[in-house]
């Protein structure tokens, strides 16, 4: 027990250390451009140019902006290069405006991300500002931007209306690719079982993925759900491999940070929320609405339990998002040290630490897929548990019943 607490403390302190480092960086970096923070057009101009222009101008580099851009979604698949020399694959943009659906390629914005290039479709005019698409103003402001910018304190906000954006962004594109890869892997494995029969030893892909499949089926599903876990195994397997494959894709340098995107983790955790609650049995609901406690504390307990329905998947969403995003940010921050200190001699340190974090991320890729799936199974297990309060000893009960 004490060792667990110690480990927990150590993790917390490491997390706090990393977190404070990161916060420290962002504060320092922001502070390195103090004169520009006057609320005027100069500030907006300099700021909206982001890291790229500043870099070219040999000005201070906003590593935190680059890091955040790196982990964010974008409308084109950027490979390398900066600004107008950037090499990027254009992706389809699909917008639901007032006049119906507009469809065009992201290349029509000509790498513009500052609201300067207007694309006209369906009689509507669109501009892109910081990877977000807005309806363009009739006329450009003095910097050639077709968006209305207001700056308060450090925050710049756009007051233009925005269409609903259903674009195939970098994350969506990577998701499609990963889905094809997943389908190819597992359908070919399924075929292998059909052609080679089940008596021969697994080969190739089969021998790598079969233990994972068995792990999900036996340790995650059976271990946490107990009796009747077979029903949930396909869902758990899909979640596990969807997260795992996308985690791995996210680690490839030009890959997208899909599992570190809150929209993606939101959908997965909502799926878990739905699966858990539509399978919730009488015990599950009575545990929430008729808890085994004095009636006097029901007014406190019931709202907590009801909120608990939502907090469990919410924690799932935040955990996966934060873990994957944090890993990416740490790596780019470490590499960014070279540019912050403006010396090559820091490079070995950066590379060594980045390598260490990269290896750690390899572990985290598996770990987070496991944690998400395991907790999903745990929630389902508590929803379908037979008559225990905690739902953890389901299989024991079955054994006991069988024994009687």
């Amino acid at each position: 027990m004490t060792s667990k607490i110690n480990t927990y403390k150590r993790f917390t302190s490491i997390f706090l250390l990393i977190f404070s480092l990161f916060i420290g960086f962002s504060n320092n970096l922001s502070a390195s451009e103090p004169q520009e923070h006057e609320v005027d057009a100069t500030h907006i101009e300099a700021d909206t140019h982001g890291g790229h222009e500043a870099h070219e101008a040999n000005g201070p580099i906003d590593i935190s902006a680059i890091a955040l851009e790196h982990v964010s979604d974008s409308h084109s698949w950027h490979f390398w290069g900066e600004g107008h020399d950037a090499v990027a694959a254009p992706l389809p943009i699909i917008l639901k405006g007032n006049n119906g659906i507009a469809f065009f390629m992201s290349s029509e914005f000509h790498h513009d991300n500052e609201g300067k290039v207007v694309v006209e479709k369906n009689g509507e005019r669109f501009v892109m500002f910081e990877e977000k698409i807005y309806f363009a103003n009739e006329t450009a402001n003095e910097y050639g931007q077709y968006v209305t910018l207001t700056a308060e304190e450090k925050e710049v906000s756009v007051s233009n209306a925005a269409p609903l954006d259903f674009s195939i962004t970098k994350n969506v594109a990577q998701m499609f690719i990963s889905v094809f890869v997943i389908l190819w892997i597992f359908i070919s494995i399924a075929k292998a079982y059909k052609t080679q029969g089940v008596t021969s030893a697994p080969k190739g892909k089969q021998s790598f993925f079969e233990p994972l499949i068995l792990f999900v089926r036996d340790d995650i599903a059976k271990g946490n759900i107990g009796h009747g876990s077979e029903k949930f195994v396909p869902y758990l397997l899909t979640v596990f491999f969807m997260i795992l494959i996308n985690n791995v894709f996210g680690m490839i340098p030009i890959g997208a940070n899909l599992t570190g995107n809150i929209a993606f983790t939101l959908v997965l955790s909502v799926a878990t929320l739905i699966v858990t609650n539509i399978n919730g049995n009488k015990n599950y609901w009575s545990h929430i609405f008729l808890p085994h406690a004095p009636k006097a504390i029901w007014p406190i307990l019931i709202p907590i339990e009801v909120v608990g329905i939502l907090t469990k998947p919410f924690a799932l969403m935040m955990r996966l998002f934060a873990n994957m995003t944090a890993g990416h940010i740490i790596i780019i921050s470490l590499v960014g040290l070279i540019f912050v200190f403006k010396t090559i001699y820091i490079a070995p340190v950066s590379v060594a630490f980045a390598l260490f974090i990269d290896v750690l991320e390899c572990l985290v890729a598996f770990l987070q897929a496991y944690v998400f799936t395991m907790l999903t199974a745990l929630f389902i297990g508590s929803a379908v548990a037979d008559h225990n309060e905690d739902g953890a000893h389901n299989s024991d009960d079955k054994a006991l019943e069988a024994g009687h």
Partner: protein
Amino acid sequence: MNLFILASLIEPAVGLIFWTTITFVLLLVLLGKFAWKPILNAIKTREKGIEDALASAENALNDMRELKSNNEKILAEARAERDNLLKEARDTKDAIIAEAKAKSQAEADRIMSSAREQITNEKNAAVAELKNQVATLSIEIAEKILRSELSSDDKQKALVNNLMKDVNLN
């Protein structure tokens, strides 16, 4: 600026939610139908096969054990049967020998007794004949002796004298 991007980081994008939902549901259906079902079934079949193979091996072992014990039993029975047969044969032999002995003894006794009887008869006959002959001979000898004794007057007188000497005239 930082907060602006940070806000976009933790603000879920509608488009991505839309596409993720569609993709995830599709993936769930497709994988469920074309991958997990055959894979899980195959694994289950294999596990069942392994279980069955183990069970049948266990059964075969048990059968073997049973067969072995049966064999031993049969062997023991055969041995007992053989011993029995041998014992019976010995008994029969002994019985036959004893019977034969008894029979031959009886025969021998019968032969002996008849022989003895014959011998006795023969002996008696011989003794009778011998007696007859001895009697005849004795008579003849006596006749001859008498003739020779009484062949002259002197001898007759000597005999009378001799006889007279023995007679005591008192």
